[in-house]
Each structure stands twice: as C-alpha cells, then as structure tokens.
C-alpha cells in the first residue's frame, strides 16, 4: 500500500527528497542516504522497496537497505541503466522523487524465538540488510543467528563495515565466500551453496531469508531442501521490473501474483510451484 501519498492523492506523483550522503561501495554500486522533504520517516519495513524518480529519466524500483529508524533511509543502487547511471552522478543536496514504500517485508518479528539464517548473494544483501540489522538490534529475541554472504569476487563485497562487525560478533555466525579469489583474499572460495553445510541448521525452528541473483535461488533452495528446511520457513525476495509499483501496469506479474503487491518478499511455500517465479 502506498503509505506516503502526496497531498494530491495521486499514486503516481512522487514526494521530493534530498540526497544527504553518498558513498561508492564498489565499481558498480553506490550507497545513497535520503531524506524526504517532509522530514518524515519513510515508514518502511525491511525488505520493502521505493520507486526512485528523476525528471526526464523515469522511475525504477529500488530496495531500501536500512532499518526503519530515524528520518532518513538508505538505498544501494547498481549502475545498470540510464536512471541508475544518472543517480550515480548525483551530488549531496540534489533532489530526487520517491514513491512508496511498497510491497511486502521480511516478517522478522514473527521470527522471534527462532533461529534465523540469512543467505545473500551479491547485491541480494541490499534488501536483506535492513532485516539483518533489525534482528541484531533485538538480538536477545532470537535463537542462533547466521549470515552467509557470497559475491563474485572480493571487490564486489557490499557494506564491508557491516560485514566486519558481523564477523566480529560472537553471537552471530558469519561466513563469506567469493566465486573467484584474489591475491589479497584469504577467505573461502566457491559458490555460496558450499557455505550451507558448514553451519548447523535446526530445520524446524529456523527462519531462512534468501536473496540473490535468479541462478542462486535454484541451488540454495535445493541445498535447503537437502537440509530438510520446510518451504514454509523460507522467505525469498524476487526481482521484477515494476513500472508502477501499485499493482496496475502488469509488468511484475508472476502468474497470478504481483511482485509489487504480493511481493517482493514471498514465502517460498507460496511460490515454489509457481512457474516463472524463480
């Protein structure tokens, strides 16, 4: 649901927002901290997305990567098209349009009392980061917490400060791997599925969050199946090219589901039999 409608009551008119901090994370990905002109919190939940708008360049759906605290929010954007390239050229103080937040979230509050396992590949860490931070902020409410992160190479690791913090924490199991190492890399090398057997999973009391490129899902979900994790306990975040974000334009349809309304976060049990979903 659109929670932040402008005064016009028009679901397509963005709110004005300001870029307050910008930081390059990798060659392709840049971090943006954004403040709405109303100075109100975005009001999102971890896993939701916003439509980012630049006049003349259009809009694109972008996941929110921050926890829902404070009156700013954070995005990480890969430079891939016209709009995202223009975003990368923005400077602090520049304006952009924001609609949303839209879509479903990772229901971390319902994970309380359970173990939580996060499995993220590459840019898939972006939508999940808010959920990880939310769980860690209420660490005592959860059982064992494990984070598995894989990237193609060491230079593509996102949020390196967060990664270091998670690695240092004794109450978090943090494992990382890269598909291809480098001279400076002394960590694991291999695809992310190789990390799963290294941790102990109590299938019946573990909530699993999976997010990554389409190819990753297949193998990770297969491995989780091997580990007897029920589909009901697994949450995935799916990507589609939304044009409207509000359930009208039809572009993000996965069979009868709309990624913008029913997703982007789905319970795996609800999409495992849906063609074209994963």
């Amino acid at each position, binding site marked *: 649901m659109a929670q932040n409608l402008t005064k016009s*009551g028009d*679901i397509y008119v963005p709110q004005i927002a300001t870029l307050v901090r910008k930081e390059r994370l990798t060659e392709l990905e840049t971090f943006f901290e954004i403040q709405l002109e109303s100075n109100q919190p975005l009001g999102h939940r971890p896993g939701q997305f916003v439509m980012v708008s630049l006049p003349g360049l259009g*809009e*694109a759906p972008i996941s929110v990567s921050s926890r829902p605290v404070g009156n700013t929010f954070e995005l990480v954007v890969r430079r*891939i098209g016209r709009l995202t390239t223009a975003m990368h050229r923005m400077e602090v103080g520049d304006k952009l349009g924001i609609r949303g937040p839209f879509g479903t979230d990772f229901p971390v509050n319902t994970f309380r009392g359970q173990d939580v396992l996060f499995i993220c590949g590459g840019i898939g860490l972006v939508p999940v980061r808010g959920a990880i931070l939310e769980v860690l902020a209420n660490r005592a409410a959860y059982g064992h917490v494990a984070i598995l992160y894989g990237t193609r190479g060491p230079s593509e690791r996102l949020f390196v400060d967060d990664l270091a913090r998670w690695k240092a924490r004794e109450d978090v199991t943090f494992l990382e791997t890269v598909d291809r190492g480098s001279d400076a890399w002394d960590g694991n090398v291999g695809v992310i599925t190789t990390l799963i057997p290294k941790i102990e999973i109590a299938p019946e009391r573990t909530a699993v969050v999976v997010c990554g490129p389409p190819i990753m899902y297949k193998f990770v979900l297969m491995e989780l199946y091997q580990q007897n994790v029920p589909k009901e306990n697994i949450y995935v975040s799916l990507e589609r090219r939304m044009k*409207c974000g509000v359930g*009208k334009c039809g*572009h993000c*349809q996965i069979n009868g589901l709309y990624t913008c309304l029913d997703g982007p976060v789905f319970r795996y049990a609800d999409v495992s039999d849906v*063609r074209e979903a994963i």
Partner: protein
Amino acid sequence: MSITKLNETALQSWVDRLIGQHQVYGVKAKGDRFAFGPLDDAAELRLDYDVTILPPKKYFLPQSQELLKFSRRGAYQPVGEPAPFVLFGVHPYDVVAIAQMDEVFSKDNHDRHYMQRREKAVIVACDVQKASPNVFAACMGTATVQEGFDVLLTRIGDDYLADARTPKGEALLQRIEGGADPDPASLARREQLWQDLNRFLMRHELKCAPAKLPGVLDQQEEHPIWKKRAERCYSCGSCNLVCPTCYCFDVQDEVDWDLENGRRVRRWDGCMLAEFALVAGGHNFRATRAARYRHRYYRKGKYLWDRMGQIACVGCGRCVTACTADIANPVEVFNTLLEDR
C-alpha cells in the same frame, strides 16, 4: 428510473442536442469497419455497427496518458481533472469489460487518472444490432447487460427504447424531445431480443460455462497447444491492443525541446511483446513466445479469476479478427484444453 420510446428522428435530434452541450464520443464508420470517435453530427452515429476496431477503454485509459508534469529541477505537478464526456453506443460486452477495469483501477491503490475519467463519463450503452464476424459474447454471458451503464438503448423495429438506470442517465433522458412512454408490446419485444441475444450472439461456441475456465486451465501449463500455436506468433501484441480487458502499460518520461520541462506518460503495453517481462540485467522471465502466449490465456481465464473473480474475456472477438497468424481465438484454445482433460 424511466424508459422513453423514441423514433429515429427524435434520437437524432437528441444526440445533436447532446453534441451541442457536451463532448460526445460515439461509433462512426471507418472504411468498412467502425471506431469510436468524437461526434460532430448525429448523422455520423452508427448504432448498427457490429464491433469497433478498438474498445472504448481508450477513453478511460488512453493510448498515451499524462500522469504528471515535471521540471528538470525536480518539481512534480499532478495533472488537472479530465473534462466530462458522453460515450454513446457501447455494446454490452464492452460495458462488462469497463466494469472489470473499474475494479482494477479502484481497488488496491485508487488510480485517479482512470477513475476520474470514469466518474466524468456518461455511458450510453446500446444492444447489439448486428453480430460481428468473431463475436462469442453469448457464451461469455456478456451479450446483454443490466448494469454498468447510465442509459441503455435498444432498437425495436424502427424505434428505440432509452432506459435510464442512474441519475446521470435520467438527466440525459430529460433532454429527449418527442419521446413517448414505452408501450407493453415494445417492452415485451425487448425482453425477447435480450433472450435471443443471450442465446445466439456467438460465431464461436465455448463448450463450457465461463466459470469453469479456471478449472479447465488448471495444471495445463505443459499442454502442447501453447508451443504449437505460439510457433506462428509474431509477438506483435495486436491481441493485447484490441482487447477490452487488457490494461497493462509502460511508463516513460517525455522531455520538452528546451530540456526544462516534461511529462511522465503511460502507454499501452502488451504481455505478448518480447520485452514485456525483461528485468534489469537482461533476464527475461517469459523469453519464449510459448511462455508469453500461455501467460495471456492464463491471465484471461485463471489469474484474474483467482485475484478478483473475473473471467477477463468478454467474447468481443476483436483478438480473433486482429491476429495475423490466426492463433488468437480464445474459444479454440479453451475448447481444446477442455476436450483433452
């Protein structure tokens, strides 16, 4: 609400009076076919049409519709309200299609661009006088309608019955001069006509009730029909464009020549076009023609049913006529699946 009987002359002068006071769109001849367009003169109106090339959805969801204005500095201005208009001569199957689209654009995030046009419109429906080459409305339960319009016109012999069903329709009827109270015989003939339309307005026969279609489609994703028929598909999207229940759109920004101002515009799009399900990074979730073809029929017969209780095919037959490859007939698809169950 009231019913008025009027002859051809009274109808013409009524329409001319409306044209003098409102923007009126109605059905006109276009070559040897028909199309909705602005009416300048009642003589242009062709209520004896069989089907229009494009459905009247273009007045509520225009082919190109401005959503907002922007300036390069980043200000976004909502667009103003649309002007009121009268839409004259909408066939019952199109009335049903409009009612379905109303659900889509009013539920789950109110779309003011569509809904304001709907609220500003007065719809004068018209019972079908001539069957189009591919109509199958009778099997879809859309050959006649009793709601979803403001006035319903029915031709009875040389006269018309104008039946107002809403206050807006009633107000329109007030402007008729030379009308008469309907006689019982005309009303009886209208009942008979509705019965006949409901039985006979079909050139193709769907061999099950429309409500059975979700079941007919269930678990048939691997049926050979999708691949076989899609081999001839040109991915041209004509079936999407002419479909009264297709509403998918793309959104693009247009910038003025001075590079200062512009507008965000939505345009009709279609799931049969190759790039419709493309995502950032180049992955296409429906890369094959068969996947797109199957998606279209599932959306018509199952997905929208599961979501909103609608069978999103009203039997107008436009897609059958528009398809160059002759693969778009929903009745052929659904009957084949039905036989093979």
